[in-house]
């Protein structure tokens, strides 16, 4: 279509370019689609995220808000210009050195912003870096390591650590998949599609609940040039139903007669890319019939409320329960009781990469290339929707620009796959930011009541927690939340008399699903608050109170599980002790020196989190092989969503096998190539897949040594196609080229599966839900502007028991990123369907909102985990929000009961605490 194109001449990264483009097309689109420069990322198309930052004549700007015509005659510089002759700039190198890139989707925008700053200020202060980079959002790192990298970018290049055989574990090596993340070459979901791929766009409900009728779809297709066809529920060859937990699968790819939430799909249009980009979706022939909507569990549980799903009475999806001892007796024995009601909202994952991908039909198979946390689950779900056998579906995960739980669920996959299957051509899609926010899963809103009783010596006698969770229109991970909350509701404490119940209730909201912690963070907010309150009543210091009740080896958890070793919460709290007394003293001094305008406070909270599925099978399988030319290939099927599975799993396998970690070639997740490593969720990859990698490494080594006919204490090394074995008394060499080769091309290969030992929970929730828990505790220091209710964070000290830190830099990265998300949850994040579907009304922390974070890595070895390692990913977020709320109370006397603690709510709570509310 030549209509309205102009000739455009400008310079990109030093090279003159001439092209035709619509004059007002966004520069980001010109760079990505017309020039193939995909290093410039698009996260919001609204200037809110800065992922598309480029320089025009040296000036930093968001390419999504620049008209193509405005670049005529000018010099545009993108991330691709940073490396020269294939050599990383020192800035890029520093990003790798400091672990400043996790998922990598914001990294190009960060690098371009940082390069702009460094030209003017080669050795910037922390504040200068924060100011200069503040226009770019990151959801993974918590920003601290990015600032560190930029501040040190003027220093000489340091040599990357390359541990020798056996020394990988515990080494802070750079991410093995890091380099493409800093050059802009990493291929994210929106960055790749076959030439000429069609585009599919989805028609979504503008109402929370609405019936719909289609107009003349055939006429629409016939009359709109470039449109190939329309998809509706009728086009689904298999079952129009998916869900992450098969017995609860209830979500249609296309609604059949009514949409149950705003953003639910009713149809999709498929057509040529240029036509689809310019298509006004409001011209699609559909009529909406708005229906009354149930937006809260309260409304949905009323007797006369309409039912969202047959068979789910009172709109209750499921209840979870754990009970132990006798709480009536426990409360009767208490000398002090504290209770409270707490409310948390929907929280949006807000990864900077909106969902995207493409599908193509290859014979009688379908290939889906998309961002995902769960390739094998996607495969099973898509086989059902498409009516295909599992092996007819191939899932190829792209680099994933953040997930945090939401990319466990199906999103775009059915639309590209159905279109590619039906029309026989490759089809792609990229969600817009509002589309991503309105249609994908959220953290469950919660209403939690809890009560704790303690004896005068500070020992907890009873604890009770009841929570109602808004699970939205479809099941998603609602059952997991309902199960996890009662199991974890006690926190990592010994509680003899316990009762906890969680109820997941359907509403006409976006489905609530998995989000870092599966409901446990919401429960911890309530539990850690009433712990502080009861300690206060008993006159016991909050840290001391926690230490008196801490779970220890040999004591039963609330589900009756007993760990003989590996309970690490005591060690975490002890590690915090000196920091707690220092922070307390500093807060006291601050308050004595300052008037009543600003008050300092400190707060503490703990966490525990079971790694892996709750009482369900949960295996991972790892394959590792050696090729005739001496290559070691690791089939690593755990989706790396930025957390570092590609690196950590490889470090584990390297040491088990006994080869240098950098000698291993990684084959990342692809359902045709890598065995099933389960989903990247539940903090399970380091533990479960890591264990499989350890077992596979050991097994491969055993096979090699057995082949060489030496003892199991021998070691080996590989030099090209020669494998040398050293035993106590002799050295032998094996010519790998002389060995038989299996169909995968290996001369030695090992395949090992690990499934953590768990046992089902009975009707009182008693049993063995997890083989491994990880533990942690955090101290928050903050100041509150009393007149405005603004909270200023000063420092977070985070002690986390990871069993064994496989890679300390990645551990710190998880801690800092988790704290940042906890800060957001505590202070600013609230998703309101229909109101905050963008990144300027939905606020996540920026560079200026994350304080200094000191990580204390605690290593209490686990009996199951690989080399003693425990999971970490979710733990890190749990203590942050409750510690912030406890610190606000310490500073002001005000107890925040409704999150987020925005300035107006903090101010109101202060007024109530001061008795000045009228």
């Amino acid at each position, binding site marked *: 279509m030549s*209509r*309205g194109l*102009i*000739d455009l001449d400008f310079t990109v990264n030093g090279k003159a370019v001439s092209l035709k483009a*619509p*004059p*007002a097309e*966004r520069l980001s689109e010109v760079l990505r689609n017309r020039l193939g420069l995909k290093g410039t990322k698009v996260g919001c*198309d*609204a*200037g*809110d995220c*800065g992922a598309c930052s480029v320089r025009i004549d040296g*000036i*930093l*700007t*968001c390419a*999504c*808000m*620049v*008209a193509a*015509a*405005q670049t*005529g005659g000018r010099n545009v510089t993108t991330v691709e210009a940073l490396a020269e002759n294939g050599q990383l700039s020192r800035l890029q190198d520093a990003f790798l050195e400091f672990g400043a890139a996790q998922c990598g989707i914001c990294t190009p925008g960060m690098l371009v*912003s940082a390069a702009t700053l460094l030209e003017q200020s080669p050795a910037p202060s922390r504040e200068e870096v*924060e*100011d*200069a980079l*503040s*226009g770019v*959002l990151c959801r993974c790192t918590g920003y601290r390591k990015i600032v560190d990298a930029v501040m040190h970018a003027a220093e000489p290049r340091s040599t990357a650590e390359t541990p020798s055989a056996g020394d990988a574990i515990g080494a802070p090596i750079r991410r093995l998949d890091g380099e493409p993340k800093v050059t802009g070459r990493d291929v994210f979901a929106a960055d790749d599609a076959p030439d000429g791929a069609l585009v599919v766009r989805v028609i979504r409900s503008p109402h929370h609940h609405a019936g719909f009728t289609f107009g003349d779809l055939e006429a629409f297709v016939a009359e709109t040039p470039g449109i190939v066809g329309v998809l509706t529920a009728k086009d689904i060859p298999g079952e129009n139903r998916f869900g992450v937990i098969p017995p609860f699968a209830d979500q249609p790819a296309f609604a059949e007669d009514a949409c149950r939430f705003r953003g639910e799909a009713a149809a999709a249009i498929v057509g040529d890319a240029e036509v689809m980009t*310019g*298509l*006004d*979706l409001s011209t699609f022939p559909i009529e909406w019939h708005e229906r009354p909507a149930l937006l809260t569990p309260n409304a949905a549980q009323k007797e006369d409320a309409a039912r969202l799903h047959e068979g789910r009475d009172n709109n209750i999806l499921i209840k979870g329960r754990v009970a132990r001892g006798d709480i009536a007796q426990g409360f009767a024995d208490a000398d002090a009781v504290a209770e409270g009601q707490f409310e948390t909202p929907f929280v949006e994952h807000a990864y900077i990469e909106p969902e995207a991908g493409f599908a193509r039909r290859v014979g009688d198979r379908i290939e889906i290339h998309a961002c995902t946390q769960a390739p094998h689950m996607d495969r099973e779900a898509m086989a059902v929707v498409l009516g295909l056998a599992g092996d007819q579906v191939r899932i190829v995960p792209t680099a994933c620009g953040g997930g945090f739980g939401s990319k466990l669920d199906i999103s775009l996959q059915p639309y590209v796959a159905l279109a590619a299957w039906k029309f026989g051509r490759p089809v792609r899609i990229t969600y*817009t930011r*509002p589309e991503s926010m309105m249609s994908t899963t959220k953290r469950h809103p919660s209403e939690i009541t809890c009560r704790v009783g303690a004896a005068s010596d500070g020992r907890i006698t009873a604890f009770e927690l009841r929570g109602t969770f808004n699970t939205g229109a479809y099941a998603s991970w609602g059952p997991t939340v309902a199960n996890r909350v009662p199991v974890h509701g006690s926190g990592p404490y010994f509680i003899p008399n316990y009762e906890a119940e969680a109820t997941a209730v359907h509403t006409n909201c976006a489905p609530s699903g998995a989000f870092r912690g599966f409901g446990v963070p919401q429960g911890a907010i309530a539990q850690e608050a009433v712990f502080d309150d009861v300690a206060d009543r008993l006159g016991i210091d909050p840290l001391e109170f926690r230490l008196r009740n801490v779970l220890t080896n040999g004591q039963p958890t609330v589900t009756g599980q007993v760990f003989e070793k590996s309970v690490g919460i005591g060690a975490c709290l002890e590690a915090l002790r000196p920091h707690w007394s220092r922070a307390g003293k500093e807060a006291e001094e601050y308050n004595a020196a300052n008037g009543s305008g600003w008050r300092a406070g400190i707060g503490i909270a703990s966490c525990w989190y079971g790694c892996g599925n709750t009482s369900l099978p949960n295996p991972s399988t790892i394959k590792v092989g050696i090729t005739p030319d001496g290559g070691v290939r690791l089939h690593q099927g755990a989706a790396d969503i930025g957390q570092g599975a590609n690196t950590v799993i490889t470090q584990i396998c390297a040491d088990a096998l006994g080869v240098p970690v950098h000698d291993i070639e990684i084959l990342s997740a692809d359902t045709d190539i890598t065995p099933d490593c389960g989903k990247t969720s539940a903090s399970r990859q380091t533990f479960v897949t890591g264990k499989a990698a350890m077992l596979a490494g050991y097994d491969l080594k055993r096979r090699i040594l057995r082949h060489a006919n030496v003892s199991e204490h021998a070691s080996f090394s590989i030099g090209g196609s020669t494998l040398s074995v050293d035993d106590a008394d002799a050295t032998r060499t094996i010519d790998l080229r002389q060995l038989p080769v299996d169909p995968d091309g290996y001369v030695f290969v090992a395949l090992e599966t690990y499934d953590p030992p768990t046992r089902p929970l009975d009707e009182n929730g008693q049993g063995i839900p997890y083989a491994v828990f990880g533990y942690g505790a955090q101290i928050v220091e903050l100041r509150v502007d009393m*007149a*405005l*209710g603004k909270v200023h964070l000063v420092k977070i000290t985070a002690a986390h028991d990871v069993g064994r830190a496989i890679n300390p830099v990645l551990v710190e990265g998880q801690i800092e990123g988790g704290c940042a998300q906890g800060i957001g949850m505590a*202070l*600013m994040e*609230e998703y*309101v369907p229909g*109101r*905050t579907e*963008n990144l*300027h*009304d939905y*606020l996540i*922390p*920026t*560079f*200026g*909102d994350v304080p200094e974070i000191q990580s204390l890595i605690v290593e209490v070895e686990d009996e199951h985990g690989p080399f003693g390692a425990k999971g970490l990913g979710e733990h890190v977020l749990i203590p942050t929000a409750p510690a912030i709320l406890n610190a606000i109370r310490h500073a002001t006397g005000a107890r925040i009961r409704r999150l987020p603690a*925005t*300035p*107006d709510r903090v*101010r*109101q709570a202060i007024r109530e605490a001061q008795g000045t509310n009228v």
Partner: protein
Amino acid sequence: MLAYEQLDFAGDCVMNYARPDGMEDALNLLADRSWVVLAGGTDFYPAQGDRPLTQPIMDISALEQLRGIREDDEYWHIGGLTTWADIAASALPPAFDALKLAAREVGSVQIQNAGTVAGNLCNASPAADGVPPLLVVDAEVELRSASGVRTLPLSEFITGNRKTARRRDELLVSVRAPKASCAGQSHFLKLGSRRYLVISIAMAAVRLQATDAATVASSGIAAGACSEVATRLPALEADIAGAALDASLPGRIGPVHFKDLSPINDIRGTADYRLEAVEELVRRAIGCCVEKL
């Protein structure tokens, strides 16, 4: 004039994009038909979302003469296409410190580099960061069309939430402030739920001018995000006229001075909170001006 003839194609949409590089061309085109005006793009593109561009777009970014700051005997002039980064880096007198502080709070660095003063005013958001600091220097806007020039006080130019007095054939070419109103010290405070990239819950701009006897000679005080249009607080200005410029000054401020504001309840804050907060912000901004004087 860039790209304008090239877009002259058959059909009912004759020109859907023009980027004139001369003022006369721009104004003649504007007189011709209705255009959406595009400059820095920082409001235009976010509002566009994924909808196709269908309205005719007049891209005025090539009108370089509209960018920059100058003074004459009577006025300070800020060209409509002056960016927020230009303002932050400018040598404007201290009465514009409030504006310079606001310039550093408009969105992000990227937005400050692209977004223009005229765009901020014409977009007319109740939370526009640029408006309160311009109100306190009695800013006026210069609107130009093929048929002439008119000048309106800024307070009359913005008429409501996303509403202005700009006729569709006019361009906001410049903002000017009378030098008599550009004396003294100024300060700006913005309150949001996060440090960067945030839309105001409330904001305050204050300009104070001192007499030789260290009393308030004149003042300009404005509140933003607390009514449909940011507004001056004349009752407060009258009450502090002649008052001693010392630590007692902020204490003269009370709720009565804010009773004409009409903040809304929304996701960013309650109406009651906004009223309480803006009073505190004004008090603090006055305190900062007193310290500087």
